Every structure is written in structure tokens, then in C-alpha cells.
């Protein structure tokens, strides 16, 4: 029971109190770039959820079973990045082969994610926080959902904003960053609810 609450706590903390995007400001580039439409945001969000969950688990295995025994822990940055890149590539190929609708909905966003710092961030946080394998997976999964939630909220706001007048100098990324800041303030309201 104890372990379960631990996992649940990590899951919800990753979504709300420690939202990777709105508290750590990681993964901003695709957040700003692909948040124009709710539909595409769902696709990108889903791809992030999938990649974060599985690469954090994969990198956990690589770190504890390959790098630590070989005393190569300091290489984790490089190794994590190439593991993420290779994993994403292979998954993209499989999706493309297997299902065209799934590829259209999700696969095309995978290459974008390879260079998403949030993915690497999650892998590094799981080491700093000494998570177990299960915890890492749940943490990655939760962080992905948190990221998706943030980009969906942003896309919703931006879609509604199409009808509103934005001062010329603030159009595009300017107003988006301001919105992101206000959203981050709102998410601060969650802090302290769950401690991890």
C-alpha cells in the first residue's frame, strides 16, 4: 500500500506540482511551436507521453545495468541522448510501417521530440531523485501527461485568442510566453499539495 501511494504521489506530482513544462520550463520550443491547434497538440502531447514513459524506463535500465557497473555514470548525458534518439527513430519506423492513421496522428511528431529537452530532463530528474524502475516509469508517464495538459491548455487559449486583438509587438511567441508565465503562476497554486 505504501508503495502504491508512493507511485500515485509521484504520478500526480509530475502532472501538477512539478509540471515539467510550467515549473521547470523544459520542452519550451515545441510547446511554443506546435500549440496553435488543439488537434495537433493532442498528437504531440500523446507522442511526448509515450516517449517520456518508455525512455525514462529504458534509460533507467541503461544507467543502472550498463553505466554504473562500468563506472561510466558521468557519460549519462550523452548516452541518454543517443538512447532517446535511437528509441524514437525505431518507434517511428514501426508506427509508420504498422498503422498509417497512428503515424499521421502521432508518428510525425516523434522526430520533433527527439530534441525535446523535457525528455532528457525527466531522465536526469529520475536519477537525482533516486527513483526505482517502477517509479521512473510512472514519473516519466506522469510528466508526459503534465506536458500534454500544459500544451493542450495553451492550444485552447491560443485558439480562442485568434478572435482577440493582440498588440502588434506581442503577436506570436511574445503573447504565448506571457500566457505560459500566467499558466505557470496558476500551477504554483498546486505546490505543496504533494511533496516528492
Amino acid at each position, binding site marked *: 500500500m505504501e508503495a502504491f501511494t508512493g507511485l500515485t504521489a509521484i504520478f500526480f506530482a509530475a502532472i501538477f506540482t512539478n509540471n515539467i513544462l510550467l515549473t521547470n520550463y523544459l520542452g519550451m520550443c515545441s510547446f511554443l511551436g506546435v500549440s496553435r491547434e488543439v*488537434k*495537433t497538440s493532442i*498528437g504531440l502531447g500523446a507522442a511526448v507521453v509515450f516517449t517520456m514513459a518508455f525512455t525514462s524506463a529504458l534509460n533507467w535500465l541503461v544507467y543502472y545495468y*550498463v553505466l554504473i557497473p*562500468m*563506472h*561510466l555514470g558521468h*557519460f549519462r548525458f*550523452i*548516452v541518454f541522448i*543517443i*538512447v532517446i534518439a*535511437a528509441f524514437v*527513430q*525505431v518507434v517511428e*519506423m*514501426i508506427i*509508420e*510501417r504498422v498503422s*498509417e*492513421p497512428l503515424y*499521421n*496522428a502521432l508518428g*510525425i511528431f516523434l522526430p520533433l521530440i527527439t530534441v525535446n529537452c523535457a525528455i532528457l530532463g525527466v531522465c536526469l530528474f529520475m536519477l537525482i531523485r533516486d527513483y526505482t524502475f517502477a517509479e521512473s516509469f510512472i514519473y516519466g508517464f506522469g510528466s508526459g501527461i503534465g506536458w500534454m495538459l500544459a500544451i493542450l491548455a495553451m492550444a485552447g487559449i491560443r485558439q480562442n485568442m485568434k478572435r482577440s486583438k493582440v498588440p502588434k509587438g506581442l503577436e506570436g511567441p511574445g503573447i504565448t510566453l506571457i500566457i505560459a508565465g500566467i499558466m505557470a503562476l496558476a500551477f504554483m497554486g498546486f505546490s505543496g499539495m504533494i511533496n516528492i
Partner: protein
Amino acid sequence: MLLALVISIGAMCAISAVLAIIMVIAESTIGNYGEVSISINDGDKKIDARGGKPLLTTLKEANVFIPSACGGRGSCGLCKCKVKSGAGEIMPTELPWLSEAEKADHVRLSCQLKVKGDLQVEIDPALLYVREFRTTVVGLVNLTHDIKQLTLKLDDPNSMDYKAGQFVQIETPVYERTDEPVYRAYSMSSVPSSKNTIEMEIRLVPDGICTTYVHKYLKVGDKMTVNGPYGEFHRSENDRHMICIAGGSGMAPLKSILYDMREKGINRKATYFFGAKSKRDLFLLDEMKQLERDMPSFTFIPALSAPDAEDKWEGETGLITNIVDCHTEDLSNAEAYLCGSPFMIDACIVVLKKHGMPEANIFYDKFS
């Protein structure tokens, strides 16, 4: 210390190698779509390629260049082409670039569309065949006092697919008369089946940069760069009577068209009016006579507008327009192929229309 360094380097290499091997295996199993064939413009050109790459890249590897400014990242929207079958659903990355009409017309962004099976695509025919060729001059013969026949052997690439009647652009390099390379278009007089050599008839234009270069500077063995083929002037496929009219170096595309017909055994009724000033401006008479013997329905009518006394000319005399006027009757079901100066062509069109030829049946190549 050194050992630890070696071990860590070795381990890193091993990890990278393992990942690379996984990628290679994935590429050759999951990412392998086998051999596909791409048919361009209803089979005008067929490409056999390995699937798995974007259409833009696949075409580029087969030397078909679709313009793209961003290099295939899907951010310029230039590399559009029509994919009639085999493409699948439009990808979300293409949507911003396609209008509703284009979506309905099967237009796709070739850099986003991955080739996974046989495709039927449609692209601008001009893009399909235009190439740059390195060539060597193998023949430079005087046809008349001011027209030279230039023969080029194609070195790289070594063959050109073109239609009889099309033209190429010749690059005149920097020489006394020009500070920068100059490009001029010349019709090919060779038969398309001779893919390795092309032939042009180039008339010396006083003070012309390119023609002076060809006439006064160029030697057999020199290298030349040409690009092409271009042009919409070619024989249309039907049985209508062909009225061909040319003057001077306007001979070139018509010779190509007629020789092509002889080679293909097309015995279509054709009359060729060739206008020149005096006898010294006439050329290829023997070849045209031979053509008359080989193609029973073909008639060659040379005409001189101002024969010299010593020419002893017994053939037609007068302006080419008058000759055409005399020798033709109802042309409502005939086609005309005109080559020469704009002045001559405009005058001929008037005559042809007078004989009832519909404007849609008049094809011309103005040499200006």
C-alpha cells in the same frame, strides 16, 4: 588511470555500436519497403527506386529535380506535385500548404510524402527532362555561307531524352565579346533516337555573341555546356496533313521532326515549304530529296525569293507566303508547323487562316 580511460572510451564505443547496429537492423527490416516503381506523367518516365524515403529525395536520386527552398523540411511548401495513386492520406504536416482545391486534386508536398509503394505522380514535364550536359564538339560543318551545323557528343550525362522539335540552350563561355557566360536557345535538328549526339543548325547573326562564338571561335574537340531539352514545339499525334514552313535555320526542328517520322515509319501526308533568298542559302537538298523517296506522302518545295542570275533556278520563285498560297487549297483539316523569323511566321499564319486552317492547328517556333 590510463586503463580507466581506455575502458570508458571502449564502453562508449560499444554502446554507440550496439545502438547503431539496432538502427541498421531496424532500417533494413522495419524501414525496408522494397523496390517500388514511380510512374511520372502517365508513364512518360518510370523510376525504379527503393522505398522508404520521401518522394522528393527519391526523385532527386533519379535526377528529377523538384524545386524546394527548404530542402525537404516541409517549411516552404514549394515541392508540390500531383500524386494520382499510391499516396495514402494527406499528412498533418502538409495541411498548412494545401488549399481545398489542391487537396481535391491530389496535390501533395513531395518532401513529406514517404514512398512506401508504387506511385503515379504528375509533375511539370519541363522539370522532368531538363538537365545540364557536358559535351564535346565532334562536328562543325558549313551548310551554307552563314549556317553551320554543330554536332555535340554528350559526355556527362551521356544521353538525352527529347522530342523531335525541342531545343537546348548553349552556354557561350567568357570570350572577347562577353564578360559573362551567355545562354542562347537553338533547336535540335538531330533525331531523338540518337541520344548520345545532338545537332544544331546555327546561323551567323552579325554581332551575335553566341553565333559569332560558334562560327569564329569554336573548334572540333572543344568542350561545351548545354542544358535542356525545352519547348512545346513537336509533332502532334494525328493524321492531319502537315504543312511545314521554314526559312534559314528554321530547317533544324523540322528536319528533326521529319527524320523522326521516317524512322518511325509514319507515312503521314506532309508538305514542306522552305524559303531562302538565293541558291547559296539552300542546304540539305539531297537529304530532303532522299526523304521524298523514303516517304511517299512527303513533298519538299524549296522556294527562292531573289535567285541570282547564275543560280539557273528552275524551282519556285517568290515569297514563301505566295508559294504556300498557290500550293494549298482547303486547309481546314490540316496542321501547320512554322519555324523561322517572327516576321515570316506572322505572314504565314495570315495565309494559313485564309485557307481555313483553325488557329489551334498552327504550331510555331519563332526564332528571334
